[in-house]
């Protein structure tokens, strides 16, 4: 199991489009992926879950992956969040 913490740095937060991008990225990995914000844990492969995080600008998230490609999965999703989803 791999864990990594990451901050939401795009101004608009994890609204619908970024949530969809995270889910799309997560779906490429075989590992189970969980995203944690405060006391809420959601499935990283479910858009409903990721939207439910309501992660606004500045939120601190914990990414957790468990499976064969756990290392790559966490890296890919962290990178996506840190890339601000193309917002300037």
């Amino acid at each position, binding site marked *: 199991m791999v864990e990594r913490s990451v901050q939401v740095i795009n101004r608009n937060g994890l*609204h619908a489009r970024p949530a969809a991008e995270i889910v799309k990225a997560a779906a490429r990995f075989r590992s189970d992926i969980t995203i944690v914000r405060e006391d809420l844990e959601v499935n990283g492969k479910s858009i409903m879950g990721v*939207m*439910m995080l*309501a992660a606004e600008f500045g939120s601190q998230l914990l990414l957790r992956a468990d499976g064969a490609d756990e290392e790559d999965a966490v890296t890919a999703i962290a990178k996506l969040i840190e890339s601000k989803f*193309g*917002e*300037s």
Partner: protein
Amino acid sequence: MDRALTGIPASPGIVVGPVHLLRWEVPDVATRIIADELIPAELERFRSAIETAKERLVQVRDRAASHAGPEEAAIFDVQITILDDRDLRLQVESYIRQNLAAEKAFDVVLHEWRARFAHHSSPMMRERVGDLTDVHIRLLSILLGLPDHDPVDVPKGAKAILVTHDLTPSLTVQLDREAIAAIATDAGTRTAHVAILARSLGLPAVVGLRDATMRLNGGENAVLDGSTGTLVVNPTEAEVAVFRHRAEREARDEAELRLLLSAEPITTDHQRIVLRANVDLPEESPLAATSGAEGVGLMRTEFLVVGRTAMPDEDEQYRAYRRVVEAFGGKPVVIRTFDIGGDKLPAGGFPHEANPFLGWRAIRMCLDESELFKVQLRALLRAGLHGDVRIMLPLVVTIDEVRGAQRLLDEAADELAARNVPFRRDLPLGVMVETPAAAMITDVLAKEVAFFSIGTNDLVQYTLAVDRGNVNLASRFTPLHPAVLRLVKRTVDVGRAAGLEVAVCGEMASQPVMVFALIGLGVRQLSVAPRAVPLVKHIIRGISVQLAEEAANAALESDNAAGAERQLAGRLRAAFGDASFLGDGLLGS
């Protein structure tokens, strides 16, 4: 049934065509229990409905992308991802395995999810309910075998009148202009999103019909008159003939007016008036540029926000502004900063307010959300390199707002400089005079701003305390009220004495009697919708400043709006004789 439905005129023009009724509502679903042996087939039915819905959404997305652009089409990608959600599917399938029919299983799950989103403390979440509702309706329609009502289904060339409860952004981006010739909605006001959009697309529209979707069945023949706000169902041949005659006359008048394209807007006593165009969408700028307008007097920027899932970033805004600026090749382009709040909700949602027009909106919201505002300011400063960009602040009531905005503008410039991005620093900063407060402190404002622009719609609304969107108050919304005329006069006098340009922008500047009144009050710059430019030019060329001043002075001294209108209209009619464009009522155009 009464065949003539009356609503609010939202976008002018007459269309005769079939009614295309769009009911985009969650249908009622009866509980249906299935036998154990049917469960595998029911699961299969559910999965195949999901696939069908996704195929539909891909088509809708691609069409929306070609009508409205990839950024607007992104909402459909989100909906596709929702349909793919494994948790959602598993939940529905577990209900089906407990003998619930697929449509009821899906209905129960979606109601649960929508309630969780709707009651969430984060506005970002509440804003997503619309996407879930769209998915809910679409999949249920497939499972229940209901007619698929997407506007994209209307065949090209149908020239249908789209009748719907309210035109949501996700419906709007699907509009195919070759199929839909006019829009009618139950909800909405003249300044609602649907009305602004219809005007900018040149689609005749009537809004605020209240219960048209309940009273129509779809398929009826109808006449929509966007100038008077009527929808006549199953018109007689004689009625159609009357409408056609009016439509032809309007087209003829317009053709005549277009001959004025290259004529100068000069009064008969040789006073030159600066005539500019209002632009709501970047797509309109070519039309505006060829209308004979000398630049843009009001570019609204709300299109960047309304109906979007996220605030546009700096690059996207820069491209949109640059497109308009370049279309006008160096002529002035006055860009108003976000006038959002109230009825135009940005991404991230807004707190519900009992009085949105007196609420947290426009410059108030921008100053409080300074990071969001600075993104816009940086984009404007960058666009400034490509022409004559001027920045205009909406809803100013105190000099502190001007100072706050100037400070953020300086910060925005420093940030661009630090990033080594090219921009122009010294863009003129002006204010909208649209509140009595601003009009009364024009002497204070004049020392620190570059120009005034009077927003007539809001000035009337705030001066008379009359909600411009309230159907029951329509007759009390009187722009010729002496109180309004006096505030305009004061603004013009103070501005002129300080050597500032004073313009009037807004719908009202395009009505013949208002043009006459404004010139009489000393206004020398008008900004109107592109389609109104030739008419306003025609009025200007037919009057003298001397006559207009005499009429305006008489109007200022009138007891009330009706008296002021008599003073103005009598003299205007005398100047033009019986010209048809003066219309069936000077203010009713």
